[in-house]
Protein backbone atom coordinates (compact mmCIF):
# COMPACT_ATOMS: atom_id res chain seq x y z
CA UNK A 1 0.00 0.00 0.00
CA UNK A 2 2.69 2.44 1.05
CA UNK A 3 4.52 1.87 -2.22
CA UNK A 4 1.45 2.74 -4.24
CA UNK A 5 0.32 5.79 -2.31
CA UNK A 6 2.78 8.38 -3.58
CA UNK A 7 2.09 7.43 -7.18
CA UNK A 8 -1.65 7.50 -6.66
CA UNK A 9 -1.43 10.83 -4.87
CA UNK A 10 0.83 12.16 -7.56
CA UNK A 11 -1.67 11.20 -10.21
CA UNK A 12 -4.49 12.76 -8.26
CA UNK A 13 -2.56 15.96 -7.72
CA UNK A 14 -1.62 16.01 -11.40
CA UNK A 15 -5.15 15.46 -12.57
CA UNK A 16 -6.50 17.98 -10.08
CA UNK A 17 -4.05 20.50 -11.45
CA UNK A 18 -5.08 19.59 -14.97
CA UNK A 19 -8.75 20.01 -14.04
CA UNK A 20 -8.02 23.41 -12.50
CA UNK A 21 -6.22 24.54 -15.66
CA UNK A 22 -9.09 23.33 -17.80
CA UNK A 23 -11.50 25.17 -15.51
CA UNK A 24 -9.49 28.38 -15.89
CA UNK A 25 -9.56 28.04 -19.66
CA UNK A 26 -13.30 27.32 -19.74
CA UNK A 27 -14.11 30.26 -17.46
CA UNK A 28 -11.88 32.60 -19.45
CA UNK A 29 -13.44 31.39 -22.69
CA UNK A 30 -16.96 31.88 -21.32
CA UNK A 31 -16.05 35.46 -20.43
CA UNK A 32 -14.64 36.12 -23.90
CA UNK A 33 -17.64 34.53 -25.67
CA UNK A 34 -20.05 36.53 -23.51
CA UNK A 35 -18.25 39.75 -24.33
CA UNK A 36 -17.53 39.23 -28.02
CA UNK A 37 -19.97 36.59 -29.23
CA UNK A 38 -18.81 33.35 -30.80
CA UNK A 39 -17.63 34.28 -34.28
CA UNK A 40 -15.73 37.39 -33.25
CA UNK A 41 -13.94 35.71 -30.33
CA UNK A 42 -10.44 34.41 -31.05
CA UNK A 43 -8.29 31.79 -29.39
CA UNK A 44 -5.78 34.57 -28.74
CA UNK A 45 -8.44 36.43 -26.72
CA UNK A 46 -9.09 33.32 -24.65
CA UNK A 47 -5.40 32.67 -24.03
CA UNK A 48 -4.83 36.29 -23.04
CA UNK A 49 -7.83 36.24 -20.67
CA UNK A 50 -6.61 33.03 -19.03
CA UNK A 51 -3.07 34.28 -18.52
CA UNK A 52 -1.85 30.81 -19.56
CA UNK A 53 0.57 29.80 -22.26
CA UNK A 54 -0.57 29.16 -25.78
CA UNK A 55 0.68 25.57 -25.63
CA UNK A 56 -1.40 25.01 -22.49
CA UNK A 57 -4.53 25.95 -24.39
CA UNK A 58 -3.78 23.45 -27.14
CA UNK A 59 -2.93 20.86 -24.54
CA UNK A 60 -6.60 20.95 -23.54
CA UNK A 61 -8.53 21.94 -26.63
CA UNK A 62 -8.03 21.62 -30.36
CA UNK A 63 -9.69 24.91 -31.14
CA UNK A 64 -12.44 27.40 -30.49
CA UNK A 65 -15.26 25.02 -31.41
CA UNK A 66 -14.01 22.42 -28.92
CA UNK A 67 -13.91 24.94 -26.06
CA UNK A 68 -17.40 26.10 -26.85
CA UNK A 69 -18.66 22.55 -27.15
CA UNK A 70 -17.25 21.88 -23.66
CA UNK A 71 -19.12 24.90 -22.28
CA UNK A 72 -22.35 23.78 -23.96
CA UNK A 73 -21.78 20.28 -22.61
CA UNK A 74 -21.43 21.61 -19.06
CA UNK A 75 -24.74 23.43 -19.41
CA UNK A 76 -26.38 20.18 -20.49
CA UNK A 77 -24.72 18.27 -17.62
CA UNK A 78 -26.55 20.58 -15.27
CA UNK A 79 -29.95 20.71 -17.01
CA UNK A 80 -30.39 17.01 -17.85
CA UNK A 81 -30.19 15.84 -14.19
CA UNK A 82 -32.76 18.50 -13.27
CA UNK A 83 -35.19 16.89 -15.69
CA UNK A 84 -34.26 13.39 -14.56
CA UNK A 85 -35.04 14.34 -10.98
CA UNK A 86 -38.61 15.34 -11.80
CA UNK A 87 -41.64 13.23 -11.06
CA UNK A 88 -44.57 12.66 -13.41
CA UNK A 89 -46.20 15.91 -14.56
CA UNK A 90 -49.68 15.24 -13.23
CA UNK A 91 -52.62 17.71 -13.19
CA UNK A 92 -52.51 18.05 -9.41
CA UNK A 93 -50.49 19.46 -6.52
CA UNK A 94 -47.67 16.92 -6.98
CA UNK A 95 -47.32 17.78 -10.67
CA UNK A 96 -47.32 21.46 -9.83
CA UNK A 97 -44.63 21.01 -7.17
CA UNK A 98 -42.30 19.00 -9.38
CA UNK A 99 -42.71 21.43 -12.26
CA UNK A 100 -42.15 24.43 -10.02
CA UNK A 101 -38.93 22.99 -8.60
CA UNK A 102 -37.63 22.16 -12.08
CA UNK A 103 -38.45 25.60 -13.47
CA UNK A 104 -36.86 27.35 -10.49
CA UNK A 105 -33.53 25.56 -11.06
CA UNK A 106 -33.78 25.90 -14.84
CA UNK A 107 -34.26 29.68 -14.55
CA UNK A 108 -31.28 29.89 -12.21
CA UNK A 109 -29.13 28.20 -14.86
CA UNK A 110 -30.53 30.56 -17.49
CA UNK A 111 -29.37 33.50 -15.39
CA UNK A 112 -25.92 31.94 -14.98
CA UNK A 113 -25.55 31.41 -18.73
CA UNK A 114 -27.44 34.54 -19.84
CA UNK A 115 -24.37 36.30 -21.21
CA UNK A 116 -23.72 33.40 -23.56
CA UNK A 117 -27.12 33.46 -25.30
CA UNK A 118 -25.91 35.22 -28.43
CA UNK A 119 -22.77 33.09 -28.66
CA UNK A 120 -24.87 29.93 -28.29
CA UNK A 121 -27.01 30.90 -31.25
CA UNK A 122 -23.98 31.74 -33.40
CA UNK A 123 -22.00 28.64 -32.50
CA UNK A 124 -25.00 26.38 -32.97
CA UNK A 125 -25.52 27.70 -36.48
CA UNK A 126 -21.90 27.78 -37.57
CA UNK A 127 -20.11 24.83 -35.95
CA UNK A 128 -21.18 21.29 -36.74
CA UNK A 129 -19.58 19.93 -33.56
CA UNK A 130 -21.50 22.41 -31.37
CA UNK A 131 -24.73 21.80 -33.27
CA UNK A 132 -24.33 18.03 -32.80
CA UNK A 133 -23.77 18.42 -29.08
CA UNK A 134 -26.68 20.77 -28.52
CA UNK A 135 -28.97 18.63 -30.69
CA UNK A 136 -27.96 15.53 -28.71
CA UNK A 137 -28.41 17.24 -25.33
CA UNK A 138 -31.69 18.86 -26.32
CA UNK A 139 -32.86 15.47 -27.54
CA UNK A 140 -32.09 13.95 -24.13
CA UNK A 141 -33.87 16.73 -22.26
CA UNK A 142 -36.77 16.43 -24.65
CA UNK A 143 -37.17 12.66 -24.22
CA UNK A 144 -37.02 12.91 -20.42
CA UNK A 145 -39.65 15.65 -20.29
CA UNK A 146 -41.88 13.79 -22.76
CA UNK A 147 -41.68 10.71 -20.52
CA UNK A 148 -42.73 12.75 -17.47
CA UNK A 149 -45.66 14.11 -19.49
CA UNK A 150 -46.83 10.66 -20.57
CA UNK A 151 -46.40 9.27 -17.05
CA UNK A 152 -48.38 12.21 -15.72
CA UNK A 153 -51.33 11.25 -17.90
CA UNK A 154 -50.87 13.82 -20.66
CA UNK A 155 -52.38 12.27 -23.76
CA UNK A 156 -51.28 13.31 -27.21
CA UNK A 157 -49.85 11.68 -30.28
CA UNK A 158 -46.85 13.98 -30.05
CA UNK A 159 -45.67 14.26 -26.46
CA UNK A 160 -42.15 14.93 -27.77
CA UNK A 161 -43.33 18.06 -29.59
CA UNK A 162 -45.20 19.24 -26.52
CA UNK A 163 -42.05 18.71 -24.45
CA UNK A 164 -40.06 20.70 -27.02
CA UNK A 165 -42.55 23.58 -26.89
CA UNK A 166 -42.25 23.67 -23.09
CA UNK A 167 -38.43 23.61 -23.24
CA UNK A 168 -38.56 26.45 -25.78
CA UNK A 169 -40.69 28.44 -23.33
CA UNK A 170 -38.44 27.77 -20.30
CA UNK A 171 -35.29 28.38 -22.33
CA UNK A 172 -36.32 31.77 -23.69
CA UNK A 173 -38.16 33.03 -20.64
CA UNK A 174 -35.25 34.53 -18.71
CA UNK A 175 -33.97 36.48 -21.73
CA UNK A 176 -37.33 38.03 -22.56
CA UNK A 177 -38.18 38.67 -18.92
CA UNK A 178 -34.89 40.57 -18.65
CA UNK A 179 -35.61 42.65 -21.77
CA UNK A 180 -39.20 43.20 -20.64
CA UNK A 181 -37.95 44.08 -17.15
CA UNK A 182 -40.78 42.22 -15.48
CA UNK A 183 -40.78 42.98 -11.80
CA UNK A 184 -41.31 39.70 -9.95
CA UNK A 185 -39.07 37.39 -7.90
CA UNK A 186 -37.74 34.18 -9.43
CA UNK A 187 -39.66 32.12 -6.85
CA UNK A 188 -42.94 33.78 -7.78
CA UNK A 189 -42.04 33.50 -11.47
CA UNK A 190 -41.34 29.76 -11.19
CA UNK A 191 -44.64 29.27 -9.40
CA UNK A 192 -46.63 31.24 -12.01
CA UNK A 193 -44.83 29.58 -14.91
CA UNK A 194 -45.50 26.12 -13.46
CA UNK A 195 -49.19 26.97 -13.05
CA UNK A 196 -49.41 28.31 -16.59
CA UNK A 197 -47.70 25.19 -17.93
CA UNK A 198 -50.18 22.88 -16.19
CA UNK A 199 -53.09 25.05 -17.32
CA UNK A 200 -51.97 24.72 -20.95
CA UNK A 201 -51.41 20.97 -20.61
CA UNK A 202 -54.63 20.18 -18.75
CA UNK A 203 -57.21 22.88 -19.50
CA UNK A 204 -60.02 20.65 -18.27
CA UNK A 205 -58.45 19.69 -14.98
CA UNK A 206 -60.01 20.80 -11.74
CA UNK A 207 -58.97 24.42 -11.59
CA UNK A 208 -59.08 24.56 -7.80
CA UNK A 209 -56.43 21.89 -7.56
CA UNK A 210 -54.43 23.09 -10.46
CA UNK A 211 -54.51 26.82 -10.47
CA UNK A 212 -55.86 28.18 -7.25
CA UNK A 213 -53.49 26.05 -5.26
CA UNK A 214 -56.26 25.23 -2.76
CA UNK A 215 -55.07 21.64 -2.45
CA UNK A 216 -51.39 22.46 -2.74
CA UNK A 217 -51.22 23.45 0.90
CA UNK A 218 -47.73 23.69 2.36
CA UNK A 219 -46.11 22.97 -0.98
CA UNK A 220 -46.64 26.56 -2.19
Amino acid at each position, binding site marked *: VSAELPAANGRTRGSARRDATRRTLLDSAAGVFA*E*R*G*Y*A*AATIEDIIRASGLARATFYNHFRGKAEVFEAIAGEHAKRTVPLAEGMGPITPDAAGLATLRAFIREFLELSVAYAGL*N*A*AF*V*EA*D*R*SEAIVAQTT*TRDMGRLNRILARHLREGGFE*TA*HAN*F*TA*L*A*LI*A*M*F*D*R*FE*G*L*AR*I*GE*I*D*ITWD*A*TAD*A*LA*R*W*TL*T*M*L*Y*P*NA*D*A*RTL*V*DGASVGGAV
Partner: protein
Amino acid sequence: MTTIDPQSSIRWRAGRVTLGRPAAQRVLRPEGEDMARRLLAAGRAVFDRRGFDGARVDDIAAEAAVSHGTFYLYFHNKEELLHLLALECAEDLRGLLRELAGVQPADIASWTAWLHTFVSRYRAHGAVVRVWLERRDPDPLMQALGDEILGRFATVVDGFITPELAERINRDVITVAVISMIENLCFWQAGHEELDERILVETLAQLLSGGFSVGPGVSV
Protein backbone atom coordinates in the same frame (compact mmCIF):
# COMPACT_ATOMS: atom_id res chain seq x y z
CA MET B 1 -40.82 47.39 -51.54
CA THR B 2 -39.65 47.86 -48.02
CA THR B 3 -41.71 50.20 -45.94
CA ILE B 4 -39.45 52.41 -43.93
CA ASP B 5 -40.19 54.24 -40.76
CA PRO B 6 -40.38 57.92 -41.74
CA GLN B 7 -38.41 58.95 -38.63
CA SER B 8 -35.50 56.79 -39.61
CA SER B 9 -32.34 58.53 -40.62
CA ILE B 10 -31.10 55.64 -42.70
CA ARG B 11 -29.90 56.53 -46.10
CA TRP B 12 -29.71 54.27 -49.08
CA ARG B 13 -26.75 55.68 -50.90
CA ALA B 14 -27.27 54.31 -54.36
CA GLY B 15 -29.05 57.08 -56.21
CA ARG B 16 -28.29 59.28 -53.18
CA VAL B 17 -31.77 59.11 -51.77
CA THR B 18 -32.95 59.05 -48.23
CA LEU B 19 -35.14 56.10 -47.48
CA GLY B 20 -38.19 57.29 -45.71
CA ARG B 21 -39.04 59.92 -48.28
CA PRO B 22 -42.22 59.15 -50.22
CA ALA B 23 -41.59 56.65 -53.00
CA ALA B 24 -42.20 59.28 -55.65
CA GLN B 25 -39.08 61.13 -54.56
CA ARG B 26 -36.84 58.12 -54.94
CA VAL B 27 -34.48 58.05 -57.82
CA LEU B 28 -33.15 54.56 -57.23
CA ARG B 29 -33.01 52.71 -60.52
CA PRO B 30 -34.54 49.20 -60.68
CA GLU B 31 -31.14 47.55 -61.03
CA GLY B 32 -30.00 49.47 -57.96
CA GLU B 33 -32.91 48.06 -55.99
CA ASP B 34 -32.09 44.56 -57.18
CA MET B 35 -28.51 44.90 -55.99
CA ALA B 36 -29.62 46.33 -52.65
CA ARG B 37 -32.02 43.39 -52.24
CA ARG B 38 -29.21 41.00 -53.04
CA LEU B 39 -26.94 42.57 -50.44
CA LEU B 40 -29.72 42.56 -47.85
CA ALA B 41 -30.34 38.85 -48.47
CA ALA B 42 -26.60 38.18 -48.23
CA GLY B 43 -26.40 40.15 -44.98
CA ARG B 44 -29.27 38.15 -43.52
CA ALA B 45 -27.55 34.86 -44.43
CA VAL B 46 -24.19 35.93 -42.99
CA PHE B 47 -25.71 37.32 -39.76
CA ASP B 48 -27.54 34.03 -39.41
CA ARG B 49 -24.33 32.02 -39.72
CA ARG B 50 -21.83 34.22 -37.94
CA GLY B 51 -23.85 36.59 -35.79
CA PHE B 52 -23.57 40.33 -36.15
CA ASP B 53 -20.20 40.80 -34.45
CA GLY B 54 -18.62 37.98 -36.39
CA ALA B 55 -19.94 39.11 -39.78
CA ARG B 56 -17.50 41.07 -41.92
CA VAL B 57 -18.41 43.24 -44.87
CA ASP B 58 -16.18 40.99 -46.99
CA ASP B 59 -18.28 37.95 -46.01
CA ILE B 60 -21.45 39.76 -47.06
CA ALA B 61 -19.94 40.88 -50.36
CA ALA B 62 -18.71 37.33 -51.04
CA GLU B 63 -22.14 35.90 -50.20
CA ALA B 64 -23.72 38.31 -52.70
CA ALA B 65 -20.93 37.57 -55.21
CA VAL B 66 -20.04 41.26 -55.56
CA SER B 67 -16.91 43.24 -54.79
CA HIS B 68 -16.12 44.88 -51.49
CA GLY B 69 -16.47 48.24 -53.26
CA THR B 70 -19.98 47.45 -54.49
CA PHE B 71 -21.14 46.90 -50.93
CA TYR B 72 -20.05 50.42 -49.99
CA LEU B 73 -21.97 51.91 -52.91
CA TYR B 74 -25.12 50.80 -51.14
CA PHE B 75 -24.36 50.85 -47.43
CA HIS B 76 -22.00 52.78 -45.18
CA ASN B 77 -21.31 49.69 -43.09
CA LYS B 78 -22.86 46.51 -41.78
CA GLU B 79 -24.76 48.47 -39.10
CA GLU B 80 -26.68 50.27 -41.80
CA LEU B 81 -27.53 47.01 -43.52
CA LEU B 82 -28.73 45.55 -40.20
CA HIS B 83 -30.90 48.61 -39.65
CA LEU B 84 -32.61 48.09 -42.98
CA LEU B 85 -33.16 44.40 -42.30
CA ALA B 86 -34.55 45.23 -38.87
CA LEU B 87 -36.90 47.87 -40.27
CA GLU B 88 -38.16 45.41 -42.85
CA CYS B 89 -38.55 42.71 -40.22
CA ALA B 90 -40.32 45.10 -37.85
CA GLU B 91 -42.82 46.04 -40.54
CA ASP B 92 -43.54 42.38 -41.26
CA LEU B 93 -43.94 41.65 -37.54
CA ARG B 94 -46.31 44.61 -37.09
CA GLY B 95 -48.54 43.03 -39.74
CA LEU B 96 -48.38 39.62 -38.08
CA LEU B 97 -49.21 41.11 -34.69
CA ARG B 98 -52.21 42.96 -36.13
CA GLU B 99 -53.39 39.56 -37.38
CA LEU B 100 -52.69 38.02 -33.95
CA ALA B 101 -55.10 40.52 -32.40
CA GLY B 102 -57.85 38.83 -34.45
CA VAL B 103 -57.12 35.33 -33.07
CA GLN B 104 -59.79 33.76 -30.86
CA PRO B 105 -57.54 32.78 -27.93
CA ALA B 106 -59.52 29.72 -26.82
CA ASP B 107 -59.97 28.41 -30.36
CA ILE B 108 -57.42 25.91 -31.64
CA ALA B 109 -58.22 26.45 -35.33
CA SER B 110 -57.80 30.19 -35.00
CA TRP B 111 -54.32 29.75 -33.44
CA THR B 112 -53.37 27.14 -36.05
CA ALA B 113 -54.08 29.50 -38.93
CA TRP B 114 -52.10 32.36 -37.41
CA LEU B 115 -49.18 30.18 -36.32
CA HIS B 116 -48.73 28.77 -39.82
CA THR B 117 -48.31 32.31 -41.13
CA PHE B 118 -46.00 33.23 -38.28
CA VAL B 119 -43.72 30.18 -38.69
CA SER B 120 -43.27 30.68 -42.40
CA ARG B 121 -42.61 34.41 -42.15
CA TYR B 122 -40.42 34.14 -39.07
CA ARG B 123 -38.07 31.81 -40.90
CA ALA B 124 -36.73 34.81 -42.82
CA HIS B 125 -36.44 37.06 -39.78
CA GLY B 126 -35.23 34.87 -36.92
CA ALA B 127 -31.56 35.73 -37.33
CA VAL B 128 -32.25 39.47 -37.45
CA VAL B 129 -34.48 39.31 -34.40
CA ARG B 130 -31.79 37.50 -32.40
CA VAL B 131 -29.00 39.83 -33.51
CA TRP B 132 -31.20 42.70 -32.57
CA LEU B 133 -32.35 41.39 -29.18
CA GLU B 134 -29.03 39.93 -28.07
CA ARG B 135 -26.66 42.69 -29.09
CA ARG B 136 -24.28 43.66 -26.36
CA ASP B 137 -24.28 47.31 -27.39
CA PRO B 138 -27.73 47.98 -28.81
CA ASP B 139 -27.98 51.25 -30.68
CA PRO B 140 -31.00 53.50 -30.07
CA LEU B 141 -32.83 52.65 -33.28
CA MET B 142 -32.58 48.89 -32.71
CA GLN B 143 -33.54 49.25 -29.09
CA ALA B 144 -36.56 51.38 -29.94
CA LEU B 145 -37.68 48.90 -32.60
CA GLY B 146 -37.21 45.95 -30.24
CA ASP B 147 -39.16 47.66 -27.50
CA GLU B 148 -41.91 48.61 -29.92
CA ILE B 149 -42.34 45.11 -31.38
CA LEU B 150 -42.11 43.28 -28.06
CA GLY B 151 -44.47 45.88 -26.62
CA ARG B 152 -47.03 45.24 -29.35
CA PHE B 153 -46.68 41.47 -28.96
CA ALA B 154 -47.11 41.77 -25.19
CA THR B 155 -50.16 44.02 -25.53
CA VAL B 156 -51.96 41.57 -27.81
CA VAL B 157 -51.15 38.53 -25.65
CA ASP B 158 -52.14 40.41 -22.49
CA GLY B 159 -55.50 41.12 -24.12
CA PHE B 160 -56.12 37.35 -24.28
CA ILE B 161 -55.92 36.96 -20.51
CA THR B 162 -59.34 36.69 -18.93
CA PRO B 163 -59.96 38.15 -15.46
CA GLU B 164 -60.37 34.59 -14.15
CA LEU B 165 -56.95 33.62 -15.46
CA ALA B 166 -55.29 36.81 -14.19
CA GLU B 167 -56.65 36.14 -10.72
CA ARG B 168 -54.85 32.82 -10.63
CA ILE B 169 -51.60 33.42 -12.49
CA ASN B 170 -49.39 36.52 -12.75
CA ARG B 171 -50.30 38.04 -16.13
CA ASP B 172 -46.82 39.29 -16.95
CA VAL B 173 -45.46 35.79 -16.55
CA ILE B 174 -48.15 34.42 -18.88
CA THR B 175 -47.35 37.08 -21.48
CA VAL B 176 -43.59 36.51 -21.43
CA ALA B 177 -44.14 32.73 -21.42
CA VAL B 178 -46.38 32.84 -24.48
CA ILE B 179 -44.01 35.05 -26.46
CA SER B 180 -41.05 32.89 -25.38
CA MET B 181 -42.69 29.67 -26.49
CA ILE B 182 -43.80 30.96 -29.87
CA GLU B 183 -40.62 32.86 -30.71
CA ASN B 184 -38.11 30.26 -29.55
CA LEU B 185 -39.86 27.28 -31.09
CA CYS B 186 -40.21 29.07 -34.43
CA PHE B 187 -36.55 30.06 -34.24
CA TRP B 188 -35.52 26.44 -33.63
CA GLN B 189 -37.76 25.27 -36.45
CA ALA B 190 -36.03 27.68 -38.82
CA GLY B 191 -32.69 26.05 -38.00
CA HIS B 192 -33.99 22.47 -37.96
CA GLU B 193 -36.09 21.69 -40.99
CA GLU B 194 -36.57 18.14 -39.69
CA LEU B 195 -39.04 19.52 -37.13
CA ASP B 196 -42.35 18.93 -38.87
CA GLU B 197 -44.04 22.32 -39.21
CA ARG B 198 -47.57 20.95 -39.19
CA ILE B 199 -47.13 18.98 -35.97
CA LEU B 200 -45.26 21.86 -34.37
CA VAL B 201 -48.06 24.31 -35.16
CA GLU B 202 -50.74 21.89 -33.97
CA THR B 203 -48.84 21.36 -30.72
CA LEU B 204 -48.50 25.09 -30.07
CA ALA B 205 -52.12 25.75 -31.01
CA GLN B 206 -53.31 23.02 -28.64
CA LEU B 207 -51.27 24.38 -25.72
CA LEU B 208 -52.18 28.03 -26.29
CA SER B 209 -55.90 27.49 -26.88
CA GLY B 210 -55.94 25.23 -23.79
CA GLY B 211 -54.24 27.80 -21.61
CA PHE B 212 -56.49 30.63 -22.72
CA SER B 213 -59.68 28.62 -22.33
CA VAL B 214 -59.67 29.39 -18.61
CA GLY B 215 -62.54 31.78 -18.13
CA PRO B 216 -66.05 32.08 -16.76
CA GLY B 217 -67.09 29.23 -19.07
CA VAL B 218 -64.85 26.71 -17.37
CA SER B 219 -66.54 24.90 -14.53
CA VAL B 220 -64.49 24.24 -11.48
